[in-house]
């Protein structure tokens, strides 16, 4: 419901990083979105499209990586990825209660691909290689 404001926060972080690393032109931004983060990946993509339709980030690809929920069993400690986020019996001991979340709550910018200022001329020419990698 508030993915637009999440994108706004992301754009602020991207601006700071751009200045810090001397990025001339940003090509791609990769975000990791955990299954329990509360943010919907499609809505993030849509919010990104809306807020970067013009201006300095126009045309920059947003790559959203969905991070599955990963837990450690509350009984035997085995780490596993539940098949669904609702009923999650431990594959080893079948415990269903008290699992610890190892990953799946996060929402962070992992990396930015950009042309850095020391080699601007050449890089700007190779512009259209900005497609997100799988």
């Amino acid at each position, binding site marked *: 419901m508030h993915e637009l404001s999440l994108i706004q926060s992301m754009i602020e972080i991207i601006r700071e990083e751009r200045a810090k690393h001397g990025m001339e032109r940003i090509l791609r931004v990769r975000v990791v979105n955990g299954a329990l*983060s*509360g943010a919907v990946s499609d809505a993030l993509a849509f919010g990104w499209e809306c807020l970067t339709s013009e201006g300095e980030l126009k045309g920059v690809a947003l790559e959203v990586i969905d991070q599955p929920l990963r837990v450690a069993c509350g009984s035997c400690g085995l780490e596993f990825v539940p098949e669904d986020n609702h009923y999650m019996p431990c594959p080893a001991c079948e415990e269903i209660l008290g699992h610890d979340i190892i990953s799946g709550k996060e929402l962070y910018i992992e990396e930015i691909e950009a042309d850095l200022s020391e080699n601007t001329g050449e890089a700007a020419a190779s512009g259209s290689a900005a497609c997100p990698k799988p």
Partner: protein
Amino acid sequence: MSKTVTIVRNVLEANERRAATLKDYFDGKKILCLNLMSSPGAGKTSLLERTLVDLKGEFKMAVIEGDLQTDNDARRVAATGAQAVQVNTEGGCHLDSSMIEDAIAVLDMDGLDILFIENVGNLVCPAEFNLGEDHKVSILSVTEGDDKPEKYPLMFHLSSVMLLNKTDLLPYVDFSLEAASAHAKKLNKDIEIFPVACRTQEGLEPWYDWLRKARAGKR
């Protein structure tokens, strides 16, 4: 040549920073701060009304009321004699730390024992935004269905307490206290669960005991 720069920065870091500053402030003043979250109509304000009246003699308490519109809830709470300030998010689905900073600027925080933050009614977004609280408290009413902790795992995972409200309506609805508790405990085995009925004032004593213990922990 383009270059990939590793960043790894939490998208919500600005809010996290503010929340940490608020937490330090509450700790310094030894104020217990609780973030109350639920669906609209689960009974956050009713629970506060009862709590503020019943524990009036024990604690100095104040409330930050978050709502999309109106100051109805702040007025209900203020009628108990407690300090209350309304924050209208004007459509926003959750409170964030900057709103709490603004709200505490107009409250008299001196000598306060407990600050309740009543979040916007919503089971999704409020859970993502820390407000500097000591504990998150979720309220689920029995008319909503016992599968809600399963459907909205983050909120119940992060809560120290889950109150199951409106137990006076249990004879009329298909709600299993056991099922709701089991769902909540899947990802939060230590969650404290208190069935209550604010309307008939049943079951509130264990909640009050928890508040007393949590408050004592801040001294």
